[in-house]
């Protein structure tokens, strides 16, 4: 009897330990395979160029891209220092993102809470949403000039609809029981919006913010393509004009890093705001 009671917990511990080990081994395997994929892709590209299978004039070359990035950071780009271009694009995308998402959240909640407003405006929003909005960039350049304002406007338009649609849906999906409970507890309309509707729409809104920062970057860069004096979009357009494919790829990498950083910041903010949610993700 005593033997079994002593050995049982030991056996359980042993099992747990192997499970943890198995998980760790799996994680290491995934990491190694990911690195392998990267090495094969980049290495294949580089060797393809060296062996003459890929034309670097059209498709660039990894080592060339790295050289380009080093050159840009050390000597600046053809249109000014690299940091300046990055900053301009971040500023335009960031301002557009903030304004667009604030407008989207406000309109989404207003229309979600008010049946008449949503009945009247939903048709116009559907129409506006079906217009290819990038085309508006041309109008904005004409109307607002070559400065930051036209790019911010384009980024706002890109962001607004995504955030709006999610905020609206989030408000509509708010739990009817919670709303009834808050009303009986004594909440006024404004208190209801603040204490019940906004928190329940928050996970929807935050999900849309992840997607929409990418859209804001697209808006800013396309705006710079169409006409600008500085920014990453102009840098890409300039590289394209001088048939410098390494330059295009280098600018692309810089933009990707900016987007990943923004994504990371948004995730940190999201986790702060949604601490009340049960943990659904154990790792990653």
């Amino acid at each position, binding site marked *: 009897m005593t033997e079994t009671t002593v050995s049982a917990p030991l056996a359980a511990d042993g099992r747990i330990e192997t499970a943890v080990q198995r998980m760790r081994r799996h994680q290491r395997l995934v990491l190694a395979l990911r690195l392998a994929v990267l090495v094969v892709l980049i290495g294949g590209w580089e060797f393809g160029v060296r062996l003459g299978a890929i034309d670097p004039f059209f498709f660039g070359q990894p080592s060339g891209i790295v050289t380009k990035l080093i050159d840009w950071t050390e000597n600046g780009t053809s249109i000014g220092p690299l940091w300046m271009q990055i900053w301009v694009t971040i500023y335009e995308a960031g301002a557009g993102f903030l304004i667009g998402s604030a407008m989207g959240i406000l309109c989404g909640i207003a229309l979600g809470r008010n049946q008449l407003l949503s009945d009247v405006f939903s048709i116009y929003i559907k129409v506006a949403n079906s217009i290819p909005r990038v085309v508006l960039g041309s109008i904005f350049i004409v109307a607002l000039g070559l400065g930051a304002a036209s790019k911010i406007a384009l980024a706002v338009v890109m962001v607004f609809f995504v955030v709006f649609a999610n905020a609206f849906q989030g408000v509509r999906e708010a739990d009817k029981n919670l709303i*009834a409970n808050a009303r009986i507890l004594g909440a006024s309309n404004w208190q209801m919006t603040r204490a019940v509707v906004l928190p329940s729409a928050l996970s929807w809104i935050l999900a849309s913010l992840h997607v929409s920062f990418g859209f804001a970057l697209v808006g800013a860069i396309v705006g710079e393509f169409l006409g600008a004096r500085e920014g990453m979009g102009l840098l890409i357009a300039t590289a394209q004009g001088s048939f410098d494919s390494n330059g295009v790829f280098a600018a692309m990498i810089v933009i990707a890093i900016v987007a990943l950083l923004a994504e990371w910041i948004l995730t940190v903010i999201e986790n702060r705001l949604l601490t*009340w949610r*049960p943990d659904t993700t154990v790792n990653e």
Partner: protein
Amino acid sequence: MSAIASPSAVALKNVARRFVTPSGDVLSALEDFDLTIAPGEFMAVVGPTGCGKSTTLGLIAGLARPQGGEVTLFDAPVTGVDRRVGFVFQQDAVFPWRDVLGNVMAGPLFRGVPKDKAETEARDWITRVGLKGFEHHHPHQLSGGMRKRVALAQTFINNPQVLLMDEPFSALDVQTRELMQEELLQLWAQAKSAVLFVTHDLDEAILLADRVAVLTTRPARVKSVHTIDLPRPRDVATLRYDERFIAIARKISDDLREEVLRARAGH
């Protein structure tokens, strides 16, 4: 026992509530519904599933309007959500993004009580429902029974004179349900509010209530009202084996079974 001498906390007179279904038919949930609850009285309502028990509560709470008849609170017609009414829902209706303290404080804060006073009151209620030490837990970290305790504290802190309960313990396991019933009786004994307790569990209705109303199948009417003359305080754990309890249960259950069978035949 004239109508003038005995004021009512809740009265429904000839109430009708009908819905229009998407296909255009009119569905009648309540017809000629009469029910009166005296101040401080514990009234339980039992009836076949889907007969319109929850609809009744919604009308008294002011969440919906009747198409006919009159609903009054302390002899004044219900025109909207009334501050004297508390409501405990069947499903979880505590705010998942607020901790226990924030949830219990919600009512007073909505009603304009200063924050520090609301917090003192809330801490007192949290202690009373046995959740001391869990003030900063979020609902998802609590068990179903504990979330129900939060809901009770959240409702009782507003000091309701009329307490509406919509099958509040139906989702709990048997042991937890018994504890919560006991707890509810204690809270009610202190609060002295009029209670309308909707349930499909006849035993629960008899254990808790002063009177039990049996509803007919849809459209719901009050079929019969039974006075439960079991002495208080009642011991929820042992009362159900008492001979008087069994006699009452047998009498009402005959009444109820008739309606359940009719409901089954009709659907």
